[in-house]
């Protein structure tokens, strides 16, 4: 299981990477916005995408839409981890096809629960 973590703040990427490691996911790669993330995704081998929303260059919602529009990537499970908390934004992300939505600040338990739920649905 290879996971791509996309966030413009390196500290947030490190936090998520450490939490993922604690959950048993040791194979993670990082990108700092959608623009750098997309080529990594297109190169293949990524099984799961965790992304922030508000990033310079290319936002997480645009990355989400780009992934869903790409026939090779469109089934990729995507978890959004973001400070954007407006209802209309959450609905927008849901409509764009996000698999989970975690608002910052979040707890390790929340991240674990959402990731497990996503895989449950995929496996089930």
């Amino acid at each position: 299981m290879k996971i791509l973590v996309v966030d413009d703040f390196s500290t947030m990427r490190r936090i998520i990477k450490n939490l993922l490691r604690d959950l048993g996911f040791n194979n993670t790669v990082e990108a700092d916005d959608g623009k750098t993330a997309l080529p990594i995704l297109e190169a293949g081998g990524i099984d799961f995408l965790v992304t922030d929303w508000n990033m310079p260059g290319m936002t997480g919602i645009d990355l989400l839409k780009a992934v869903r529009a790409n026939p090779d990537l469109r089934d990729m499970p995507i978890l959004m981890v973001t400070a954007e908390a407006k209802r209309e934004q959450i609905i927008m992300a849901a409509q764009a096809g996000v698999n989970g939505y975690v608002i910052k600040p979040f707890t390790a338990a929340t991240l674990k629960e959402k990731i497990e739920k996503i895989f449950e649905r995929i496996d089930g």
Partner: protein
Amino acid sequence: MTKNIRLDLAKKLVEAIENGDEAGADELLDEIAGLRENQLFQEVGRLTRQLHDTMAGFSIDSKITDLTENDIPDAKERLQYVITMTEQAANQTLNAVEGVLPVSQELNEQIGLLSGKWGRFLDREMPFAEFKDMSAEITQHFNESKGSLKVVQDGLNDILMAQGFQDITGQIIKRVIDLVQDLETSMVELIRISGGKTTHSKGIHEPELPGPAIPGIDDKAGDVAADQDDVDDLLSSLGF
């Protein structure tokens, strides 16, 4: 002093002088002079007030100039420094955690292994040769644990020290809040002096991505998820 009053007084004065009424004429002259003085005083008063207001306006103008030329750029740098400090603290903490985690994981694994063996020993299921090996392993574990726990302790101390940012950034932010308050007061005063002839705008345009919702500010309209439960409820109402 209206024309009628002056004309009336002048007529009375002529009448008094013609009648040789010296005292009456003096009284009338005083009254006329008094009227004139009164008007002068009123005018001086008006001018003084105007001057005062203008001066007050000037001092507010210079205050705002000062604020925009010096204090606001200062504040921007101060806030930038807050970002730097919090980032440093986060990195220092993450470094410590990333240093400690593998050590504690290794300790955990070692203890798991040894306690399994120890259990078998207590159940008298362990041959002597294996017991000797286990004794050596336990000795090694003790030696290694000392070093490992030192790493953990140092890491925890690093994390502890990294929290010092809170005090410093708190003070810096407090100062910027004071500045904003100063600016607010000056602006309100400026608007008051200008006669409040301002058109009400619809407030600052909300950014497309508003970011973190601050409790008590951004959640007033009720269009913001208060917490993860709120998000989950919303998503499940959408069939998630």
